[in-house]
């Protein structure tokens, strides 16, 4: 008798505004028309995926004081597009990134409660803590949050939102026509939340939603970010997708849960992953190489190098050697509005490593950047990729993947047609949706609830 195999979770990321996306491919469609969102979401649902995922950016990125124009620029509003997608899908979870810095808890709680109602229990919120003053210039509150306060605000923001989600029990609407009573009690929605970030009072206007609260995602990599996830999140979106880095990350975050009184299965670990499929492994490798060159043009190589060297390299020849000097270190980064601005922890050491690599392997700057920024996780035939995904999940590299296709919106089609059936054959992927809500797809139990102070809990303890 064999033990049941760990099940793979899969989600689809609508490719965003970085150089993963190959917009120059003749097959690439619009990144803004609704038809593209419809296609990807319906493909993901056809593949029985857990959810569809949208990232967020609140200011157009700049580099060297100019709007960055080489990658996809422009995206829709997260809530609005997810709500529209709820109309043309039935089971697919709808996950959106929404910053806890440039929003207020009452408004966001209302939007997520609404999305959960309108999707019959499929909403998820990826809480990000972008903090920079550059982004803050687009907001009436202006300014920004000191970097060290961002997770404190995020935690209190969530505490406030959770309190709001739980103000209604869910059984208050009687709509008793004969008796004339619409509600069962007069104080519905009443809340009062006071902490160092928020002092809010009143009545929450949106009754309890099907999931109670949206599924909570965290994406952020610092120690604080991981603690925040361990304490609060249902799932974590990470960039650690490779075997060793993934296993280390997985062990680390799952290991943090006990201290918060939680069990390992209460946090689903989902790295972002890219893939390239071919009829043979060799063909896939060949296509992958083409894709990398499309992703990193000479001009893009210069821009990416500028992000590490933190200086204007526009005079450099991308087909020549990398810069012979060390990066400029300092607070003022040449790139603005990118989540990866602080990606290189020790730029001088990284640059030296890169130079050594270029010299040893005779790489031009562009080739070097292709090598060092390569994010292709799975390359091969459908069967190679299915096996690799299964192996990684069984080895606790992660619990599944958020797939980032490099072509919009058709980049997931072949995966769903070819890889999903193989995962099903291996017995590691569902053959039909069993649950209705996203919490059910992810194997999460009922959402925890905030105890209302006016409800006696004596009988329960």
């Amino acid at each position, binding site marked *: 008798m064999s033990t049941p195999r760990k099940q793979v979770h899969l989600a689809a990321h609508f490719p965003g505004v970085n150089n993963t996306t190959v*917009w*120059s491919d003749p097959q690439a469609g619009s990144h*803004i028309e*609704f038809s593209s969102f*419809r296609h990807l979401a319906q493909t993901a649902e056809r593949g029985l995926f857990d959810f569809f995922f949208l990232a967020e950016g*609140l200011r*157009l990125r700049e580099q060297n004081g*100019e*709007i960055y*124009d*080489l*990658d996809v*620029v*422009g995206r*829709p509003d997260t*809530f*609005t*597009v997810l*709500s*529209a997608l*709820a*109309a*043309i899908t039935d089971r697919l979870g709808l996950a959106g990134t929404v910053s806890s810095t*440039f*929003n*207020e808890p009452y*408004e966001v709680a*209302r*939007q997520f*409660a*609404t999305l959960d*109602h309108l*999707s*019959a229990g499929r909403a998820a919120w990826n809480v990000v803590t972008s903090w920079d003053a550059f982004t803050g*210039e*687009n*907001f*009436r*509150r202006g300014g920004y949050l000191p970097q060290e306060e961002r997770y404190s605000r995020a935690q209190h923001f969530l505490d406030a939102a959770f309190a709001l989600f739980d103000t*209604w029990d869910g059984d208050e*609407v009687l*709509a008793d*026509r004969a008796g*004339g*009573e*619409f509600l069962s009690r*007069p*104080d519905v*929605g*009443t809340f009062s939340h006071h902490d160092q970030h928020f*002092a*809010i009072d*009143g*009545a*929450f*206007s*949106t009754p309890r939603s099907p999931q109670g609260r949206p599924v909570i995602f965290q994406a952020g990599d610092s120690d604080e970010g991981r603690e925040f996830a361990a304490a609060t999140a249902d799932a974590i979106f990470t960039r650690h997708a490779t075997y060793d880095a993934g296993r280390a990350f997985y062990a680390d975050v799952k290991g943090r849960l006990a201290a918060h009184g939680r069990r390992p299965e209460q946090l689903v670990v989902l790295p972002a992953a890219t893939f390239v499929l071919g009829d043979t492994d060799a063909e896939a490798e060949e296509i992958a190489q083409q894709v990398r060159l499309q992703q990193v*043009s*000479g*001009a893009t190589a210069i821009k990416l190098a500028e992000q590490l060297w933190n200086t204007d390299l526009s005079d450099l020849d991308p087909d020549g050697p990398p810069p012979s000097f060390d990066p400029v270190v300092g607070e003022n980064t040449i790139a603005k509005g990118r989540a990866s601005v602080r990606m290189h922890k020790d730029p001088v050491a990284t640059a030296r490593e890169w130079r050594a690599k270029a010299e040893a392997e005779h790489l031009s700057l562009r080739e070097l950047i292709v090598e060092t920024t390569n994010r292709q996780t799975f390359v091969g035939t459908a069967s190679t990729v299915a096996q690799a995904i299964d192996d990684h999940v069984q080895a606790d590299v992660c619990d599944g993947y958020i797939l980032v296709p490099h072509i919009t919106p058709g980049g997931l089609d072949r995966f769903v047609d070819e890889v999903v059936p193989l995962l099903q054959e291996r017995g590691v992927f569902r053959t039909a949706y069993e649950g209705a809500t996203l919490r059910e797809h992810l194997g999460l139990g009922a959402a925890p609830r905030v105890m209302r102070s006016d409800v006696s809990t004596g009988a329960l303890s």
Partner: protein
Amino acid sequence: MTRPLHLAVALDGAGWHPSAWRLPTARPTELLTAGYWVDLARRAEEGLLDLVTFEDAFALQSTSTTGPDHRTDRVRGRLDAVLVAARVAPLTQHVGLVPTATVTHTEPFHVSKAIATLDYVSEGRGGWRPQVSARPEEVALFGRREVWGDPFVDDEATRALVRDLFEEAGDAVEVVRRLWDSWEDGAEIRDVASGRFVDRDQLHYVDFEGRFFSVRGPSITPRPPQGQPVVVALAHAEVPRAFAARSADVVLITPADNASATAQVAEIVAVRRDAGRTGVDHVFGELVVLLDDDQARADERWAQLEAWSGEPFTSDAEVFVGTPQGLADLLLARAEAGLTGFRLRPAALPQDLDAIVDGLVPELQRRGAFRTAYEAGTLRDRLGLERPANRYATGGTR
């Protein structure tokens, strides 16, 4: 020949009469489900209506002007209107979708991209009804401003507050409109030769600096299909009238008779002229309507609603209780005052929406005063509004 009217319907809860949820035709347990709103919007589309609006506010519904009323006999609880409109969009094809989004506590940057996205998901049928949140309890929901008193008290301090709120609303609409224009229509160039996805010369900082906030831009969302989604604003008093006249494409007014309609239209035209606004615009009249096949049945249903409610219905808008024929007479008479259309607030949903679609619309069509089919096009096209030129476009860009 009669000039054809434009018709909008205001959707809110179980209808505008507070007892409407008790009618046998009401669907009071479905007010938070998508199906309810989809059915209403599709019904409006069967009636060939120009647009539907979705009411909203941050605070829980209340009869008190300063806080929750803790009443259990009325509909309480609602959904975010922008999301409701977006949820309906892919399941409808023609009707304009105009949600309310308040401006007092929101970020214009977020509102701008949300309405632009509504315009994308509806393929050019998006609109926005900006509304101030004057209630002190809404201030407390955000905890960011000084809480103020009862906004309906008539003293100088309150009048000053109301003026500020509407001045801020004017700034908010201005910022949102600038953000919609912050991308030129051709900004996405996908120039494979140079590797550029956008032409950064066609993206613009809006650099708004005002008394209440500043916003840099550009938007993260490209210019929406209509260029500028249709802005609809309610103007039921002097200060909001000045705001709406300056800021909206469609101004909603609440006249009690033809004389006051004529006066209000003139006032709006004057404000618009002073503000240098040109082009075709609309002034719609607002009416609460309860319709039935004959007057007696309509009166009876109204009396039943009033009896359930236990207090007389009050509204800023005129109330019409009668037959579709009677309403058609009234609308055509009111239109003489210069109104180009009407936004009807059904007393009970879906019943009075059904009566509008099945009774009023055919009656107006018989009189040559309403369209008999949708023509292809955006909400702007339907309203005869031009697609606005982009204020930042320099003309001969590449």
